[in-house]
């Protein structure tokens, strides 16, 4: 689960093209990186919801910005926010990016973390899918049906919201805790009646004719993705956090000026074609800014989760969201 992805060597490949003398395939470059004063251990998730971080990673922006402040980084990939939470709780990562709900869950259970930037939001980035020929025609039809989603992910929140709009709760469906990667097979084999899943799977399954969208977040859930850092780490290494934000800002610049190139660059990270990737990018707004709208949305998610019993203790939004690093970068 916590396999160290090839990320490091890829990072070396991309990040050190400017460094003279460093042969790109040479893993020794990692040893020279060890000279850096501080390491940022990033817990990543290979989903297009986090496209800016992957662009920053592939373009070498993370390398450049972090080495400018004397830091380097490690990159581990996880399949969902709750798994990132686990790695952070175990003290194996300093920073992670994920959707609103898992970050709220982490804070609610007492993990010493704070949100330091936004990553993206997109109402169409998360959806309930059913088979094209399914007799489920509306959210109300989900009652008593088997629905697969990753427990503790923001998919759980969307499902709870959609159900509550129909006067139903999560207890009215048979919930199956499945990672996003396992869900398409479960739907195809008829093991489950519906999925609540995010991009790239929505675009993939729909374009393959394997599924249709029953409902997405449109008008229901803004779907914020955020970056959080371990509070103690951020306080000790403010420059590292700011460097991370700068790298994301540069990636967002690329995404807005040349989305085609960005899609080309990261499509492989998410196992999609560049064409599909470009379409997926169109479903999101990418920005590091934490606007009042973002904070209001996160607060709403928190309140709902508390009411629905997804979290059991309240989260103080002021100590959860720390805009000070963002403010310093953006001036």
């Amino acid at each position: 689960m916590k396999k160290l992805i090839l990320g490091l060597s890829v990072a070396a490949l991309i990040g050190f093209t400017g460094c003279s003398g460093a042969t790109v395939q040479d893993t020794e470059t990692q040893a020279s990186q060890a000279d850096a004063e501080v390491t940022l251990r990033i817990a990543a998730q290979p989903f297009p919801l986090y496209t800016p971080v992957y662009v920053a990673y592939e373009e070498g922006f993370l390398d450049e910005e972090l080495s400018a402040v004397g830091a380097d980084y490690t990159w581990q990939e996880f399949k969902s926010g709750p798994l990132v939470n686990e790695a952070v709780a175990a003290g194996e990562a300093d920073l992670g990016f994920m959707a609103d709900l898992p970050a709220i869950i982490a804070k609610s259970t007492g993990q010493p973390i704070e949100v330091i930037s936004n990553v993206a939001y997109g109402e169409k980035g998360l959806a309930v899918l059913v088979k094209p020929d399914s007799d489920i025609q509306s959210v109300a039809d989900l009652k008593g049906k088997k629905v697969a989603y990753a427990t503790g992910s923001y998919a759980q929140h969307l499902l709870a919201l959609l159900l509550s709009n129909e006067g139903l709760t999560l207890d009215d469906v048979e919930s199956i805790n499945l990672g996003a990667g396992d869900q398409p097979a479960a739907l195809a084999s008829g093991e489950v009646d519906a999925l609540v899943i995010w991009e790239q799977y929505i675009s993939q399954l729909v374009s393959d004719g394997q599924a249709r969208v029953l409902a997405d977040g449109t008008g229901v859930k803004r779907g914020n993705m955020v970056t959080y850092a371990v509070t103690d780490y951020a306080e000790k290494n403010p420059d590292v956090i700011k460097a991370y934000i700068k790298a994301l800002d540069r990636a967002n610049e690329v995404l807005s000026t040349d989305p085609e190139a960005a899609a080309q660059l990261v499509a492989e990270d998410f196992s999609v074609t560049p064409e599909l990737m470009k379409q997926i990018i169109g479903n999101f707004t990418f920005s590091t800014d934490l606007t009042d709208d973002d904070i209001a949305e996160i607060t709403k998610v928190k309140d709902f989760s508390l009411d629905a019993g997804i979290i059991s203790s309240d989260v103080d939004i002021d100590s959860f969201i720390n805009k000070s690093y963002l403010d310093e970068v953006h001036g």
Partner: protein
Amino acid sequence: MKNNIKQGLGHYVLYFLLPIIILIAWEWADIAGLLKSYTMPAPIAIVNTFIEYLQNGKLLTNIGVSLVRVVEGFLLALAVGFAIGIGVSIFPKFDTFTDLVIQTLRPIPPIAWIPLAILWFGIGQGSKVFIIFLGAFFPIFINTTEGVKNIDGRFFELAEVYEIPKQKLITKIVIPGALPQIMTGIRLGLGNAWVCVVAAEMIGATSGVGFMLSDGRSLSRPDIVILGMLIVGIFGKIMDDLLKALNKRLIKWQ
């Protein structure tokens, strides 16, 4: 008399001493601030979660579901493991016929069957019972055959001399003779059944103690995880105690 009571009391003090020491050390570590609630919650947090889950009904529902699965899978394994075990013990040709398949399947951990079990039997009851069956079958089967093998050969010789029919041989010699070891197999099998139910429910399930455990993991709630673990431990122990008591009644001569 007085001495007896004293001895009994001393026994129980000793019996409960270790868990009490663990609880005190755990509580102390929490008070001393050594524990982080998100990696190791205080004992009281487990108690609170226990009460919460008792009140919302989740606890009893999940225990009930797991218990039914364990009993179903275990009884199936008992019937099949016992029958095949006796079969291979008294029919050498049947032993030869089945040996390669059984001995090849035996080292495969039941957990490795989970992906196939889900494909074959679905996410519901069937796949769980299948995994539990696999986990409980082998200890019962192997101990049954070993038990028969360890019966004094003179009994079989005598049975042959007196031309005792096979049916009588099984009920009067094979089963009583192998019973102690069969009971060992049953206890091991039941223990394995609990291991397997949790494993099977942690992957692709909608209910059960294992599901509760994996839910606790996803929601960053180690208190739920620990509660689930304790439940498996306590129920496993109670069922083992029941079997031990049954063992004592069945095998009086030991």
